[in-house]
Protein backbone atom coordinates (compact mmCIF):
# COMPACT_ATOMS: atom_id res chain seq x y z
CA UNK A 1 0.00 0.00 0.00
CA UNK A 2 1.65 3.22 -1.10
CA UNK A 3 0.98 6.36 0.84
CA UNK A 4 -1.42 8.89 -0.66
CA UNK A 5 -0.09 11.53 1.65
CA UNK A 6 3.04 11.56 3.67
CA UNK A 7 4.31 14.23 6.01
CA UNK A 8 8.00 14.20 6.82
CA UNK A 9 9.13 16.07 9.85
CA UNK A 10 6.90 19.05 9.39
CA UNK A 11 6.95 21.86 11.93
CA UNK A 12 5.37 25.25 12.27
CA UNK A 13 6.96 28.01 14.29
CA UNK A 14 5.24 31.31 14.99
CA UNK A 15 6.83 34.29 16.60
CA UNK A 16 5.52 34.47 20.15
CA UNK A 17 3.22 37.26 21.22
CA UNK A 18 5.87 39.17 23.09
CA UNK A 19 7.97 39.02 19.95
CA UNK A 20 10.90 37.50 21.77
CA UNK A 21 10.61 33.76 21.33
CA UNK A 22 9.13 31.18 19.06
CA UNK A 23 5.91 29.22 19.47
CA UNK A 24 6.28 25.67 18.27
CA UNK A 25 2.70 25.04 17.24
CA UNK A 26 3.63 21.83 15.44
CA UNK A 27 6.92 20.17 16.10
CA UNK A 28 8.53 17.58 13.84
CA UNK A 29 5.46 15.59 12.88
CA UNK A 30 5.67 12.71 10.48
CA UNK A 31 2.72 10.66 9.40
CA UNK A 32 1.32 8.95 6.38
CA UNK A 33 -2.07 8.12 4.99
CA UNK A 34 -2.89 5.31 2.60
CA UNK A 35 -5.46 5.62 -0.14
CA UNK A 36 -8.93 4.87 1.15
CA UNK A 37 -7.86 5.17 4.73
CA UNK A 38 -9.21 7.46 7.46
CA UNK A 39 -6.63 8.89 9.78
CA UNK A 40 -8.02 10.40 12.96
CA UNK A 41 -6.08 13.09 14.74
CA UNK A 42 -7.14 13.80 18.33
CA UNK A 43 -6.01 16.26 20.92
CA UNK A 44 -7.15 19.13 23.08
CA UNK A 45 -7.41 22.71 21.92
CA UNK A 46 -4.08 24.28 21.19
CA UNK A 47 -2.33 20.96 20.57
CA UNK A 48 -1.65 21.94 16.98
CA UNK A 49 -3.98 19.56 15.23
CA UNK A 50 -5.67 22.21 13.12
CA UNK A 51 -2.35 23.78 12.20
CA UNK A 52 -1.09 20.36 11.21
CA UNK A 53 -4.12 19.75 9.02
CA UNK A 54 -3.69 23.08 7.28
CA UNK A 55 -0.03 22.39 6.66
CA UNK A 56 -0.88 19.08 5.12
CA UNK A 57 -2.78 20.95 2.44
CA UNK A 58 -0.47 23.94 2.50
CA UNK A 59 -3.02 26.46 3.67
CA UNK A 60 -0.28 27.30 6.13
CA UNK A 61 3.29 27.12 4.92
CA UNK A 62 5.28 24.65 7.03
CA UNK A 63 8.40 26.08 8.62
CA UNK A 64 10.20 22.82 8.11
CA UNK A 65 9.62 19.48 6.48
CA UNK A 66 7.96 18.02 3.43
CA UNK A 67 4.42 17.05 2.53
CA UNK A 68 4.34 14.43 -0.17
CA UNK A 69 1.05 14.01 -1.96
CA UNK A 70 1.24 11.18 -4.46
CA UNK A 71 5.02 11.46 -4.08
CA UNK A 72 5.03 15.15 -5.05
CA UNK A 73 6.26 17.67 -2.49
CA UNK A 74 3.47 20.18 -2.06
CA UNK A 75 5.63 22.56 -0.07
CA UNK A 76 7.99 23.22 -2.94
CA UNK A 77 5.24 23.49 -5.55
CA UNK A 78 4.89 26.89 -7.22
CA UNK A 79 1.78 28.77 -6.12
CA UNK A 80 -0.13 28.38 -9.36
CA UNK A 81 0.60 24.66 -9.51
CA UNK A 82 -0.50 24.36 -5.90
CA UNK A 83 -3.79 26.06 -6.75
CA UNK A 84 -4.32 23.41 -9.42
CA UNK A 85 -3.43 20.67 -6.98
CA UNK A 86 -6.13 21.82 -4.60
CA UNK A 87 -8.59 19.93 -6.76
CA UNK A 88 -7.30 16.78 -5.13
CA UNK A 89 -7.20 17.88 -1.53
CA UNK A 90 -10.21 19.49 0.03
CA UNK A 91 -11.22 20.53 3.52
CA UNK A 92 -14.39 20.68 5.58
CA UNK A 93 -14.25 23.14 8.45
CA UNK A 94 -15.44 22.87 11.99
CA UNK A 95 -17.67 25.89 12.05
CA UNK A 96 -20.41 25.61 9.47
CA UNK A 97 -21.40 29.19 10.31
CA UNK A 98 -18.06 30.80 9.61
CA UNK A 99 -16.87 28.77 6.67
CA UNK A 100 -19.71 29.67 4.32
CA UNK A 101 -19.77 33.14 2.85
CA UNK A 102 -23.03 34.58 4.22
CA UNK A 103 -23.56 36.70 1.14
CA UNK A 104 -23.54 33.86 -1.36
CA UNK A 105 -26.38 31.52 -2.21
CA UNK A 106 -25.92 27.82 -1.67
CA UNK A 107 -25.68 27.29 -5.41
CA UNK A 108 -22.95 29.88 -5.65
CA UNK A 109 -21.07 28.38 -2.77
CA UNK A 110 -21.15 24.88 -4.15
CA UNK A 111 -20.39 26.08 -7.67
CA UNK A 112 -17.42 28.11 -6.57
CA UNK A 113 -14.80 25.34 -6.82
CA UNK A 114 -16.13 24.50 -10.27
CA UNK A 115 -15.86 28.17 -11.27
CA UNK A 116 -12.37 28.48 -9.94
CA UNK A 117 -11.09 25.48 -11.79
CA UNK A 118 -13.12 26.24 -14.88
CA UNK A 119 -14.88 22.92 -14.88
CA UNK A 120 -17.68 22.45 -17.35
CA UNK A 121 -19.97 24.90 -19.09
CA UNK A 122 -22.48 26.92 -17.18
CA UNK A 123 -25.30 24.47 -17.62
CA UNK A 124 -23.10 21.54 -16.68
CA UNK A 125 -22.06 23.29 -13.53
CA UNK A 126 -25.65 23.96 -12.61
CA UNK A 127 -26.44 20.31 -13.15
CA UNK A 128 -23.45 19.29 -11.05
CA UNK A 129 -24.56 21.63 -8.27
CA UNK A 130 -28.03 20.08 -8.29
CA UNK A 131 -26.46 16.66 -8.20
CA UNK A 132 -24.25 17.58 -5.26
CA UNK A 133 -27.13 19.12 -3.35
CA UNK A 134 -29.02 15.89 -3.73
CA UNK A 135 -25.97 13.82 -2.89
CA UNK A 136 -25.50 15.43 0.52
CA UNK A 137 -29.17 15.08 1.23
CA UNK A 138 -30.43 18.60 0.89
CA UNK A 139 -33.66 19.72 -0.71
CA UNK A 140 -33.26 21.07 -4.28
CA UNK A 141 -34.95 24.29 -3.15
CA UNK A 142 -31.84 24.99 -1.06
CA UNK A 143 -29.91 26.19 -4.11
CA UNK A 144 -31.20 29.75 -4.10
CA UNK A 145 -31.15 30.27 -0.37
CA UNK A 146 -28.49 31.72 1.88
CA UNK A 147 -26.47 29.95 4.57
CA UNK A 148 -28.17 31.68 7.50
CA UNK A 149 -31.44 30.07 6.48
CA UNK A 150 -30.07 26.64 7.33
CA UNK A 151 -29.40 24.81 10.53
CA UNK A 152 -25.92 23.72 11.55
CA UNK A 153 -26.23 20.22 10.21
CA UNK A 154 -27.53 21.41 6.88
CA UNK A 155 -24.73 23.91 6.62
CA UNK A 156 -22.21 21.22 7.27
CA UNK A 157 -23.76 19.28 4.41
CA UNK A 158 -23.27 22.34 2.22
CA UNK A 159 -19.65 22.51 3.28
CA UNK A 160 -19.24 18.87 2.42
CA UNK A 161 -20.89 19.32 -0.95
CA UNK A 162 -18.46 22.09 -1.72
CA UNK A 163 -15.52 19.97 -0.65
CA UNK A 164 -16.45 17.02 -2.84
CA UNK A 165 -17.48 19.08 -5.85
CA UNK A 166 -14.05 18.71 -7.40
CA UNK A 167 -13.98 14.99 -6.74
CA UNK A 168 -10.88 15.20 -4.58
CA UNK A 169 -8.76 12.27 -3.49
CA UNK A 170 -8.30 13.46 0.04
CA UNK A 171 -10.62 15.39 2.30
CA UNK A 172 -9.39 16.93 5.50
CA UNK A 173 -12.25 17.04 7.99
CA UNK A 174 -11.44 19.58 10.67
CA UNK A 175 -13.81 18.88 13.56
CA UNK A 176 -16.68 18.40 11.13
CA UNK A 177 -19.26 17.45 13.72
CA UNK A 178 -18.11 19.23 16.88
CA UNK A 179 -20.54 22.08 16.48
CA UNK A 180 -23.50 19.82 15.81
CA UNK A 181 -26.12 18.35 18.03
CA UNK A 182 -25.90 14.67 18.76
CA UNK A 183 -28.83 13.67 16.58
CA UNK A 184 -27.43 15.65 13.67
CA UNK A 185 -23.87 14.53 14.34
CA UNK A 186 -24.78 10.97 13.56
CA UNK A 187 -26.50 11.99 10.32
CA UNK A 188 -23.40 13.81 9.14
CA UNK A 189 -21.06 11.02 10.18
CA UNK A 190 -23.18 8.60 8.23
CA UNK A 191 -23.13 10.88 5.22
CA UNK A 192 -19.33 11.11 5.37
CA UNK A 193 -19.13 7.39 5.54
CA UNK A 194 -21.40 6.99 2.50
CA UNK A 195 -19.44 9.50 0.47
CA UNK A 196 -16.18 7.88 1.31
CA UNK A 197 -17.28 4.62 -0.17
CA UNK A 198 -19.03 6.16 -3.16
CA UNK A 199 -16.31 8.58 -4.15
CA UNK A 200 -13.35 6.52 -2.99
CA UNK A 201 -12.16 9.24 -0.68
CA UNK A 202 -9.46 9.25 1.93
CA UNK A 203 -10.04 11.20 5.11
CA UNK A 204 -7.98 12.97 7.65
CA UNK A 205 -10.41 13.37 10.51
CA UNK A 206 -9.55 15.87 13.17
CA UNK A 207 -11.51 15.91 16.38
CA UNK A 208 -11.28 16.33 20.09
CA UNK A 209 -14.05 13.82 20.54
CA UNK A 210 -12.47 10.44 21.06
CA UNK A 211 -15.63 8.47 20.58
CA UNK A 212 -16.28 10.05 17.20
CA UNK A 213 -12.68 9.50 16.12
CA UNK A 214 -12.79 5.95 17.26
CA UNK A 215 -15.93 5.38 15.29
CA UNK A 216 -14.70 6.69 11.97
CA UNK A 217 -10.94 6.16 11.94
CA UNK A 218 -8.79 3.33 10.68
CA UNK A 219 -5.81 4.77 12.39
CA UNK A 220 -5.48 7.42 15.08
CA UNK A 221 -2.80 9.89 16.04
CA UNK A 222 -2.98 11.60 19.44
CA UNK A 223 -1.37 15.00 19.68
CA UNK A 224 -0.14 16.90 22.68
CA UNK A 225 1.62 20.25 22.50
CA UNK A 226 2.50 20.09 18.84
CA UNK A 227 3.76 16.53 18.82
CA UNK A 228 2.22 13.18 18.13
CA UNK A 229 2.37 11.23 21.38
CA UNK A 230 0.68 8.04 20.27
CA UNK A 231 -0.22 6.70 16.90
CA UNK A 232 -1.53 3.44 15.52
CA UNK A 233 -4.67 1.49 14.55
CA UNK A 234 -7.74 3.07 16.06
CA UNK A 235 -8.78 0.08 18.08
CA UNK A 236 -5.32 -0.41 19.51
CA UNK A 237 -4.73 3.20 20.42
CA UNK A 238 -8.16 3.86 21.87
CA UNK A 239 -8.90 0.39 23.04
CA UNK A 240 -5.58 -0.24 24.75
CA UNK A 241 -3.87 3.12 25.10
CA UNK A 242 -0.23 3.03 26.09
CA UNK A 243 0.47 6.69 26.59
CA UNK A 244 -0.78 8.12 29.91
CA UNK A 245 -2.22 11.11 28.06
CA UNK A 246 -4.32 8.95 25.81
CA UNK A 247 -5.42 7.03 28.84
CA UNK A 248 -6.45 10.21 30.60
CA UNK A 249 -8.38 11.42 27.59
CA UNK A 250 -10.35 8.25 27.42
CA UNK A 251 -10.97 8.23 31.11
CA UNK A 252 -12.30 11.80 31.07
CA UNK A 253 -15.23 10.91 28.84
CA UNK A 254 -18.37 10.54 30.90
CA UNK A 255 -20.10 7.28 30.35
CA UNK A 256 -23.62 7.51 29.01
CA UNK A 257 -24.89 5.21 31.67
CA UNK A 258 -25.79 6.48 35.11
CA UNK A 259 -25.17 3.07 36.53
CA UNK A 260 -21.55 3.05 35.46
CA UNK A 261 -20.31 6.21 37.12
CA UNK A 262 -16.58 5.84 37.03
CA UNK A 263 -13.64 7.43 38.72
CA UNK A 264 -11.91 9.65 36.18
CA UNK A 265 -8.18 9.77 35.87
CA UNK A 266 -8.12 13.51 36.52
CA UNK A 267 -5.28 15.35 34.97
CA UNK A 268 -4.16 18.23 37.11
CA UNK A 269 -3.87 21.67 35.64
CA UNK A 270 -4.35 22.94 32.15
CA UNK A 271 -2.48 22.02 29.03
CA UNK A 272 0.57 24.27 29.14
CA UNK A 273 0.83 27.13 26.76
CA UNK A 274 2.62 26.27 23.51
CA UNK A 275 4.65 29.41 24.11
CA UNK A 276 6.12 27.77 27.14
CA UNK A 277 6.67 24.07 26.54
CA UNK A 278 8.14 22.24 29.53
CA UNK A 279 11.56 20.65 29.43
CA UNK A 280 11.80 16.92 28.93
CA UNK A 281 8.58 15.11 28.16
CA UNK A 282 6.09 17.89 27.51
CA UNK A 283 3.40 15.97 29.32
CA UNK A 284 5.30 15.36 32.52
CA UNK A 285 3.80 18.21 34.61
CA UNK A 286 0.35 16.68 34.26
CA UNK A 287 1.36 13.06 34.02
CA UNK A 288 0.21 10.79 36.83
CA UNK A 289 3.17 8.44 36.33
CA UNK A 290 5.91 10.95 35.62
CA UNK A 291 9.33 10.21 37.04
CA UNK A 292 12.61 12.03 37.22
CA UNK A 293 13.61 10.80 33.77
CA UNK A 294 10.56 12.45 32.22
CA UNK A 295 11.62 15.85 33.47
CA UNK A 296 14.90 15.79 31.61
CA UNK A 297 14.59 13.60 28.56
CA UNK A 298 12.20 13.82 25.68
CA UNK A 299 10.96 10.29 25.05
CA UNK A 300 11.30 8.70 21.62
CA UNK A 301 8.59 6.57 20.05
CA UNK A 302 8.24 3.14 21.47
CA UNK A 303 6.65 0.81 18.94
CA UNK A 304 4.58 -2.10 19.98
CA UNK A 305 2.06 -4.11 17.99
CA UNK A 306 1.51 -1.65 15.12
CA UNK A 307 1.19 1.36 17.37
CA UNK A 308 3.82 3.67 18.71
CA UNK A 309 3.84 5.92 21.76
CA UNK A 310 6.21 8.59 22.89
CA UNK A 311 6.57 7.67 26.52
CA UNK A 312 9.42 6.40 28.60
CA UNK A 313 6.98 4.18 30.35
CA UNK A 314 4.64 3.35 27.52
CA UNK A 315 2.11 0.76 28.42
CA UNK A 316 3.35 0.41 31.96
CA UNK A 317 0.71 2.51 33.70
Amino acid sequence: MTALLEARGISKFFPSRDGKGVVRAVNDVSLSLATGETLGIVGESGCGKSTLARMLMRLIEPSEGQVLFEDEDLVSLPKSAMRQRRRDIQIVFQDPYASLDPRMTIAQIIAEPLDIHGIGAKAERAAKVRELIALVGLDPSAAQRYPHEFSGGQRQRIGIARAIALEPKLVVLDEPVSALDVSIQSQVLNLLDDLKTRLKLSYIFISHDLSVVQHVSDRVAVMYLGRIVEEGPADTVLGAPRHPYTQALISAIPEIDPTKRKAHVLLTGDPPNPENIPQGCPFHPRCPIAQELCRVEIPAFVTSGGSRARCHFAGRA
Partner: protein
Amino acid sequence: MSEHALLRVEGLTVGFNTEQGPVRVTEDVSFELKPGHTLGLVGESGCGKSVTAQTIMRLLPSPPSRIDAGRILFEGKDLATASQREMQKIRGDRIGMVFQEPMTSLNPTLRIGEQIAEPLMLHRGMKRAQADEEVIKVLKQVGIGNAERRLLQYPHELSGGLRQRVMIAIAIICKPQLLIADEPTTALDVTIQAQIMELLKTLQKDLGLAVLLITHDLGMVAEMCETIAVMYAGRIVEAGRTVNVFAKPHHPYTYGLLNSSPRRAKKGQRLPSIPGLVPPPDARGGGCSFAARCSNALERCRTETPPLVPQGNDAAACWNPIP
Protein backbone atom coordinates in the same frame (compact mmCIF):
# COMPACT_ATOMS: atom_id res chain seq x y z
CA MET B 1 -44.82 16.76 43.57
CA SER B 2 -43.38 17.32 46.93
CA GLU B 3 -44.17 20.40 48.94
CA HIS B 4 -40.65 21.22 49.96
CA ALA B 5 -39.30 21.85 46.50
CA LEU B 6 -36.73 24.65 46.34
CA LEU B 7 -37.66 25.51 42.80
CA ARG B 8 -40.86 24.61 41.10
CA VAL B 9 -41.58 25.60 37.55
CA GLU B 10 -45.20 25.22 36.57
CA GLY B 11 -46.48 25.43 33.04
CA LEU B 12 -43.90 27.95 31.99
CA THR B 13 -44.56 29.35 28.54
CA VAL B 14 -42.18 31.91 27.15
CA GLY B 15 -42.76 33.86 23.99
CA PHE B 16 -40.81 36.31 21.90
CA ASN B 17 -42.14 39.17 19.91
CA THR B 18 -40.48 39.03 16.53
CA GLU B 19 -41.00 41.13 13.45
CA GLN B 20 -43.20 38.34 12.13
CA GLY B 21 -45.32 38.30 15.22
CA PRO B 22 -45.14 36.44 18.50
CA VAL B 23 -43.35 33.10 18.68
CA ARG B 24 -43.38 30.64 21.55
CA VAL B 25 -40.04 29.17 22.48
CA THR B 26 -41.09 27.10 25.44
CA GLU B 27 -44.48 25.71 26.20
CA ASP B 28 -45.93 24.35 29.38
CA VAL B 29 -42.60 23.50 30.94
CA SER B 30 -42.90 22.11 34.43
CA PHE B 31 -40.33 20.57 36.74
CA GLU B 32 -39.17 20.81 40.30
CA LEU B 33 -35.91 20.71 42.15
CA LYS B 34 -35.43 19.85 45.79
CA PRO B 35 -32.78 21.46 47.95
CA GLY B 36 -29.40 19.80 47.45
CA HIS B 37 -30.57 17.85 44.44
CA THR B 38 -29.47 17.95 40.82
CA LEU B 39 -31.73 18.14 37.82
CA GLY B 40 -30.42 17.76 34.30
CA LEU B 41 -32.31 19.65 31.65
CA VAL B 42 -31.22 18.02 28.39
CA GLY B 43 -31.87 18.79 24.79
CA GLU B 44 -30.41 19.91 21.56
CA SER B 45 -29.79 23.50 20.54
CA GLY B 46 -32.96 25.50 20.15
CA CYS B 47 -35.04 23.21 22.32
CA GLY B 48 -35.65 25.96 24.87
CA LYS B 49 -33.52 24.72 27.74
CA SER B 50 -31.38 27.87 27.96
CA VAL B 51 -34.44 30.07 27.63
CA THR B 52 -35.96 28.23 30.53
CA ALA B 53 -32.84 28.71 32.65
CA GLN B 54 -32.60 32.38 31.83
CA THR B 55 -36.28 32.89 32.41
CA ILE B 56 -35.91 31.52 35.92
CA MET B 57 -33.30 34.21 36.47
CA ARG B 58 -35.45 36.66 34.50
CA LEU B 59 -32.40 37.52 32.44
CA LEU B 60 -34.09 37.65 29.09
CA PRO B 61 -34.69 41.21 27.93
CA SER B 62 -38.33 42.08 27.95
CA PRO B 63 -39.37 43.06 25.33
CA PRO B 64 -38.93 41.08 23.13
CA SER B 65 -39.34 38.15 25.50
CA ARG B 66 -42.28 37.67 27.79
CA ILE B 67 -43.72 35.06 30.06
CA ASP B 68 -47.04 34.06 28.57
CA ALA B 69 -48.05 31.64 31.25
CA GLY B 70 -46.82 29.71 34.21
CA ARG B 71 -45.18 30.20 37.54
CA ILE B 72 -41.64 29.98 38.78
CA LEU B 73 -41.81 29.28 42.46
CA PHE B 74 -38.50 29.74 44.18
CA GLU B 75 -38.60 29.34 47.95
CA GLY B 76 -42.31 29.89 47.64
CA LYS B 77 -42.04 33.16 45.73
CA ASP B 78 -43.22 33.45 42.15
CA LEU B 79 -40.32 34.81 40.18
CA ALA B 80 -42.41 35.09 37.04
CA THR B 81 -44.21 38.07 38.50
CA ALA B 82 -41.37 39.51 40.59
CA SER B 83 -40.20 43.03 39.88
CA GLN B 84 -36.72 43.64 38.52
CA ARG B 85 -35.74 45.12 41.87
CA GLU B 86 -36.83 41.98 43.67
CA MET B 87 -35.04 39.87 41.11
CA GLN B 88 -31.84 41.85 41.62
CA LYS B 89 -31.94 40.86 45.28
CA ILE B 90 -32.29 37.18 44.40
CA ARG B 91 -29.82 36.98 41.53
CA GLY B 92 -26.29 36.31 42.60
CA ASP B 93 -27.40 35.91 46.18
CA ARG B 94 -30.01 33.19 46.39
CA ILE B 95 -29.46 31.85 42.87
CA GLY B 96 -26.07 31.68 41.22
CA MET B 97 -25.56 31.04 37.56
CA VAL B 98 -22.73 29.68 35.44
CA PHE B 99 -22.71 30.13 31.71
CA GLN B 100 -21.43 28.17 28.79
CA GLU B 101 -18.69 30.45 27.48
CA PRO B 102 -16.11 31.15 30.14
CA MET B 103 -14.10 33.02 27.51
CA THR B 104 -16.73 35.71 27.04
CA SER B 105 -18.68 35.61 30.26
CA LEU B 106 -16.09 37.54 32.23
CA ASN B 107 -15.62 41.25 31.73
CA PRO B 108 -12.28 41.56 29.94
CA THR B 109 -11.49 44.95 31.42
CA LEU B 110 -11.92 44.17 35.10
CA ARG B 111 -9.63 42.21 37.37
CA ILE B 112 -10.76 38.80 38.52
CA GLY B 113 -10.88 39.84 42.17
CA GLU B 114 -13.15 42.74 41.41
CA GLN B 115 -15.53 40.57 39.47
CA ILE B 116 -15.75 37.88 42.09
CA ALA B 117 -16.21 40.40 44.86
CA GLU B 118 -19.07 42.18 43.14
CA PRO B 119 -21.91 39.99 44.44
CA LEU B 120 -20.60 40.41 47.99
CA MET B 121 -20.46 44.15 47.57
CA LEU B 122 -23.95 44.16 46.10
CA HIS B 123 -25.69 41.78 48.45
CA ARG B 124 -23.63 41.97 51.62
CA GLY B 125 -22.74 45.62 51.38
CA MET B 126 -19.07 44.77 51.80
CA LYS B 127 -16.20 47.02 50.88
CA ARG B 128 -13.65 45.72 48.41
CA ALA B 129 -10.99 45.16 51.06
CA GLN B 130 -13.40 43.17 53.22
CA ALA B 131 -14.57 41.18 50.28
CA ASP B 132 -11.09 40.17 49.23
CA GLU B 133 -10.77 37.77 52.13
CA GLU B 134 -13.92 35.99 51.07
CA VAL B 135 -12.77 36.03 47.48
CA ILE B 136 -9.53 34.30 48.35
CA LYS B 137 -11.46 31.73 50.32
CA VAL B 138 -13.84 30.98 47.49
CA LEU B 139 -11.00 30.83 44.95
CA LYS B 140 -9.42 28.10 47.01
CA GLN B 141 -12.76 26.40 47.23
CA VAL B 142 -13.08 26.24 43.45
CA GLY B 143 -9.55 24.90 43.22
CA ILE B 144 -7.65 27.94 42.11
CA GLY B 145 -4.27 27.99 43.75
CA ASN B 146 -2.18 31.07 44.22
CA ALA B 147 -5.38 33.00 44.88
CA GLU B 148 -3.75 36.24 46.01
CA ARG B 149 -2.03 36.61 42.68
CA ARG B 150 -5.04 35.56 40.65
CA LEU B 151 -7.11 38.35 42.17
CA LEU B 152 -5.09 40.88 40.28
CA GLN B 153 -5.18 39.11 36.95
CA TYR B 154 -7.42 39.85 34.03
CA PRO B 155 -9.60 37.16 32.46
CA HIS B 156 -7.50 36.94 29.30
CA GLU B 157 -4.53 35.91 31.41
CA LEU B 158 -6.34 32.76 32.51
CA SER B 159 -7.02 29.51 30.67
CA GLY B 160 -10.54 28.43 29.85
CA GLY B 161 -10.70 26.00 32.73
CA LEU B 162 -9.60 28.61 35.23
CA ARG B 163 -12.08 31.07 33.88
CA GLN B 164 -14.88 28.62 34.34
CA ARG B 165 -13.72 28.12 37.90
CA VAL B 166 -13.84 31.88 38.36
CA MET B 167 -17.37 31.90 36.98
CA ILE B 168 -18.32 29.24 39.49
CA ALA B 169 -16.68 31.24 42.25
CA ILE B 170 -18.82 34.24 41.29
CA ALA B 171 -21.92 32.08 41.30
CA ILE B 172 -21.34 30.57 44.73
CA ILE B 173 -19.68 33.37 46.63
CA CYS B 174 -22.93 34.45 48.27
CA LYS B 175 -23.70 30.82 49.13
CA PRO B 176 -26.86 30.49 47.08
CA GLN B 177 -29.48 27.81 47.47
CA LEU B 178 -29.59 27.14 43.78
CA LEU B 179 -26.95 27.00 41.11
CA ILE B 180 -28.01 27.11 37.50
CA ALA B 181 -25.27 25.76 35.29
CA ASP B 182 -25.97 26.41 31.64
CA GLU B 183 -23.73 24.13 29.57
CA PRO B 184 -20.87 24.69 31.99
CA THR B 185 -18.38 22.40 30.25
CA THR B 186 -19.36 22.52 26.60
CA ALA B 187 -16.65 24.96 25.63
CA LEU B 188 -13.93 23.13 27.50
CA ASP B 189 -11.50 20.40 26.60
CA VAL B 190 -12.30 16.87 27.68
CA THR B 191 -9.75 16.74 30.47
CA ILE B 192 -10.90 20.10 31.80
CA GLN B 193 -14.53 19.08 31.43
CA ALA B 194 -13.87 16.24 33.78
CA GLN B 195 -12.22 18.58 36.27
CA ILE B 196 -15.14 21.00 36.26
CA MET B 197 -17.59 18.20 36.60
CA GLU B 198 -15.74 16.92 39.65
CA LEU B 199 -15.67 20.42 41.06
CA LEU B 200 -19.41 20.85 40.66
CA LYS B 201 -20.03 17.57 42.35
CA THR B 202 -17.77 18.46 45.24
CA LEU B 203 -19.33 21.86 45.71
CA GLN B 204 -22.80 20.48 45.59
CA LYS B 205 -21.94 18.06 48.31
CA ASP B 206 -20.05 20.60 50.45
CA LEU B 207 -22.49 23.46 50.14
CA GLY B 208 -25.69 21.49 49.84
CA LEU B 209 -26.42 23.26 46.59
CA ALA B 210 -29.31 22.44 44.40
CA VAL B 211 -28.06 22.35 40.82
CA LEU B 212 -30.05 22.86 37.67
CA LEU B 213 -27.76 21.53 34.98
CA ILE B 214 -28.54 22.56 31.45
CA THR B 215 -26.67 20.47 28.91
CA HIS B 216 -26.82 18.60 25.67
CA ASP B 217 -24.36 16.01 26.93
CA LEU B 218 -26.16 12.94 28.12
CA GLY B 219 -22.94 11.63 29.61
CA MET B 220 -22.79 14.57 31.93
CA VAL B 221 -26.33 14.07 33.09
CA ALA B 222 -25.63 10.42 33.62
CA GLU B 223 -22.72 11.31 35.85
CA MET B 224 -24.20 14.18 37.79
CA CYS B 225 -27.95 14.20 38.00
CA GLU B 226 -30.48 12.29 40.02
CA THR B 227 -33.27 13.43 37.78
CA ILE B 228 -33.48 14.36 34.18
CA ALA B 229 -35.87 16.30 31.98
CA VAL B 230 -35.50 15.97 28.23
CA MET B 231 -36.67 18.90 26.15
CA TYR B 232 -37.59 18.93 22.53
CA ALA B 233 -38.91 21.88 20.58
CA GLY B 234 -39.88 23.88 23.64
CA ARG B 235 -41.52 21.12 25.60
CA ILE B 236 -40.43 18.56 28.11
CA VAL B 237 -40.90 15.24 26.36
CA GLU B 238 -39.59 12.95 29.03
CA ALA B 239 -38.72 13.34 32.70
CA GLY B 240 -37.85 11.13 35.60
CA ARG B 241 -35.04 9.58 37.57
CA THR B 242 -31.89 9.47 35.50
CA VAL B 243 -31.26 5.79 35.95
CA ASN B 244 -34.75 4.94 34.81
CA VAL B 245 -34.75 7.17 31.77
CA PHE B 246 -31.36 5.97 30.60
CA ALA B 247 -32.22 2.39 31.21
CA LYS B 248 -35.58 2.48 29.51
CA PRO B 249 -36.47 5.58 27.60
CA HIS B 250 -40.13 5.82 26.65
CA HIS B 251 -40.08 8.72 24.28
CA PRO B 252 -38.71 7.91 20.82
CA TYR B 253 -36.71 11.13 20.88
CA THR B 254 -34.94 10.21 24.10
CA TYR B 255 -34.33 6.82 22.67
CA GLY B 256 -32.86 8.20 19.47
CA LEU B 257 -30.72 10.65 21.36
CA LEU B 258 -29.25 7.98 23.54
CA ASN B 259 -28.51 5.69 20.67
CA SER B 260 -27.15 8.09 18.12
CA SER B 261 -24.11 8.80 20.23
CA PRO B 262 -21.06 7.13 18.73
CA ARG B 263 -20.12 6.14 22.25
CA ARG B 264 -22.79 3.55 22.16
CA ALA B 265 -22.42 2.57 18.53
CA LYS B 266 -20.51 -0.35 17.24
CA LYS B 267 -17.46 0.43 15.19
CA GLY B 268 -17.89 0.20 11.46
CA GLN B 269 -21.64 0.21 11.68
CA ARG B 270 -23.86 2.98 10.58
CA LEU B 271 -24.81 5.17 13.46
CA PRO B 272 -28.45 5.03 14.44
CA SER B 273 -29.72 8.53 13.77
CA ILE B 274 -32.87 10.55 13.95
CA PRO B 275 -33.81 11.68 10.48
CA GLY B 276 -34.83 15.25 9.72
CA LEU B 277 -34.37 18.45 11.62
CA VAL B 278 -35.68 20.17 14.72
CA PRO B 279 -38.52 22.45 13.62
CA PRO B 280 -37.79 26.13 14.39
CA PRO B 281 -40.10 27.80 16.93
CA ASP B 282 -42.20 29.54 14.28
CA ALA B 283 -42.81 26.28 12.39
CA ARG B 284 -44.21 24.19 15.18
CA GLY B 285 -47.74 23.35 14.27
CA GLY B 286 -50.28 21.54 16.29
CA GLY B 287 -49.56 18.03 17.39
CA CYS B 288 -46.33 16.51 18.56
CA SER B 289 -43.36 18.46 17.28
CA PHE B 290 -41.38 15.28 16.96
CA ALA B 291 -43.94 13.54 14.81
CA ALA B 292 -42.28 14.44 11.52
CA ARG B 293 -39.05 12.72 12.59
CA CYS B 294 -40.61 9.88 14.47
CA SER B 295 -40.74 6.37 13.03
CA ASN B 296 -43.48 5.39 15.45
CA ALA B 297 -45.71 8.36 14.75
CA LEU B 298 -49.42 7.85 14.65
CA GLU B 299 -52.03 9.89 12.88
CA ARG B 300 -52.97 11.39 16.20
CA CYS B 301 -49.44 12.61 16.80
CA ARG B 302 -49.73 15.12 13.98
CA THR B 303 -52.85 16.76 15.34
CA GLU B 304 -52.82 16.49 19.09
CA THR B 305 -50.10 17.56 21.44
CA PRO B 306 -49.34 14.72 23.85
CA PRO B 307 -49.26 15.65 27.54
CA LEU B 308 -46.46 14.61 29.90
CA VAL B 309 -47.89 11.64 31.65
CA PRO B 310 -46.38 8.85 33.73
CA GLN B 311 -44.91 6.05 31.67
CA GLY B 312 -43.41 3.14 33.47
CA ASN B 313 -40.92 4.49 36.00
CA ASP B 314 -40.88 8.02 34.64
CA ALA B 315 -43.01 10.37 32.56
CA ALA B 316 -43.16 10.92 28.81
CA ALA B 317 -45.16 13.07 26.44
CA CYS B 318 -45.96 10.62 23.69
CA TRP B 319 -49.05 9.02 22.17
CA ASN B 320 -47.13 5.96 21.16
CA PRO B 321 -44.37 5.50 23.72
CA ILE B 322 -41.79 2.79 23.53
CA PRO B 323 -43.03 0.25 26.00
